[in-house]
């Protein structure tokens, strides 16, 4: 049916342009609301220092894949930092929902996907910053690459993957709760998932119930992929080599793809429900 208003100028941005605009907004928060970003940076640095110092002795347990505790805990710090950088975008979204700013975005003709992708791009950028800083601190504390530059690529890949998952999770919960209850669950969920894995000790050293849970937890695979550039490969507690292998990579990639898809779908569904 034709409309009198059909000829009025009526444009909209492409998904990438709109997402980039929203990404820039997300990145401005880094300098304009540092309290929202810097804890995500400081916490993993603290974690590296504290864990590698406190649990130093665990490297002496037979079968532990490295003799440097910083090599073991630095990738964990990087992934935790990236995860919380992603979740930080969920907090921002809650703020936007509570103030009504998100209504402004929803009333614009910006493609709906850009409302999820924009924060995602910002999370990736933040994750890269966190990864670079924490890795630098780790090296300063004595971390050493055993897997060459490819090991570093795996670490960055893992951190981007976790940031994607965390952002989707955070955005989805923000859409679901639309207030700070979502924030508490975001953090708790991530925290518990990450620690119910090989966060503190490898499977070969673990005993009891945690061994079973960590084996099934896909984050274990992501950790394995991210750590492989810094630890040795062990079989039955014996070191058999070092470096990046497909064996230690494919599980992490699969976990990243599967969890990212689920998280982004969760976020997108949440956005659709807002429009309902």
């Amino acid at each position, binding site marked *: 049916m034709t409309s009198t208003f059909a000829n009025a100028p009526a444009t909209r941005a492409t998904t990438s342009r709109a997402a980039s605009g929203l990404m820039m907004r997300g990145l401005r928060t880094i300098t304009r609301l540092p309290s929202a970003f810097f804890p995500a940076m400081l*916490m993993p640095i603290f974690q590296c220092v504290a864990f590698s110092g*406190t*649990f130093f*002795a665990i490297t002496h347990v*037979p079968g532990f894949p490295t003799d440097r505790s910083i090599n073991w805990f630095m990738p964990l710090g990087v992934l935790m930092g990236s995860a919380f950088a992603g979740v930080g975008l969920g907090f921002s979204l809650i703020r936007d929902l509570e103030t009504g700013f998100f209504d402004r975005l929803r009333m614009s003709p910006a493609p709906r996907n850009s409302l999820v992708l924009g924060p995602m791009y910002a999370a990736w950028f933040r994750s890269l910053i966190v990864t670079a800083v924490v890795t630098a601190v780790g090296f300063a504390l004595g971390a050493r690459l055993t897997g060459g530059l490819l090991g570093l690529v795996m670490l960055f890949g893992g951190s981007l993957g976790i940031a994607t998952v965390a952002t989707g999770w955070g955005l989805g919960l923000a859409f679901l709760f639309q207030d700070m209850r979502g924030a508490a669950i975001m953090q708790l969920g991530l925290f518990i998932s990450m620690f119910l894995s090989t966060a*503190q*000790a490898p499977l070969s050293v673990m005993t009891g119930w*945690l061994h079973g849970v960590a084996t099934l937890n896909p984050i274990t695979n992501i950790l394995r992929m991210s750590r492989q550039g810094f630890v040795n490969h062990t079989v039955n507690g014996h070191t058999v080599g070092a470096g990046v292998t497909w064996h230690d990579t494919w599980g992490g990639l699969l976990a990243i793809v599967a969890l990212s898809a689920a998280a982004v779908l969760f976020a997108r569904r949440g956005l659709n429900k807002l429009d309902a």
Partner: protein
Amino acid sequence: MSVGTIAPRAEFAHSAETGHAWSQTMAMSKRSIIAIVRQPALIIPSLIFPLFFAALGSSSFSRATQLPGFPKVDSFLALTLAASVLQGVIFGSVTGGAALAVDIETGFFDRLLASPTSRVSILVGRLAGNALFGSVEALFFTLVMIPFGVNIRSGPAGVAVITVAGGLIGLGIGGFMAAMALRTGSAEAVQGIFPLLFVSMFFSSAFFPRETMKGVYRSIANYNPLSHLYEGMRDLVITGWSFDAVLKSLLIPIAIGCVSIPLALLALRRRLRAA
């Protein structure tokens, strides 16, 4: 007609003159405790997280107990009871301090000041809530871990000391939180201390024995009072009754309180002067 001074009504004159500080303190303590009980969402993390870490630790680090420098224990879990008490009470104390800051932010604190409430009772009431909650948490963790195989070698007396220690830690740490709340009037600022306390726990023997650390890290842990406090309570669990353990468990939080409570009183006095 001049107004002159207006005397309080006869039936209230006695209260106004004596202040009934004790009954006011009890009332404020009761309020503090009721607030804790009625907001489970605030206290559940301080009960659940330490248990979570304890469970994680016992699975991740059980083999580490065979390493040189580790105390002789039946299981890693036995080492975590004292750490859980410490963590839980610290988490809980932050909540109490934040509640005082919220009172200031919402104006309820001014309402108390405008009444004949004894000023010190406002603070003491808040700290009493912290102390009671600390003791309850200590007992809670003890009772939860016993069925999982933790054998408290010092027996009921040791449990009593750990329970009292929990209360004293709540009092001591609560003093710092109250000082921050009174100084800043901001719940966010109080919660901002939490990372500092959390960090100080890591730089102690609460998670792994000092003997297994090295370098600067070990030095910091050696001087950290939380290390000695933790070891006192730990020894009551894994070694048995000893005065050394009892003294560490009780005197160190008392010493912390001797610093923190005067700080809180000073902050209270400053706030009253500014009002």
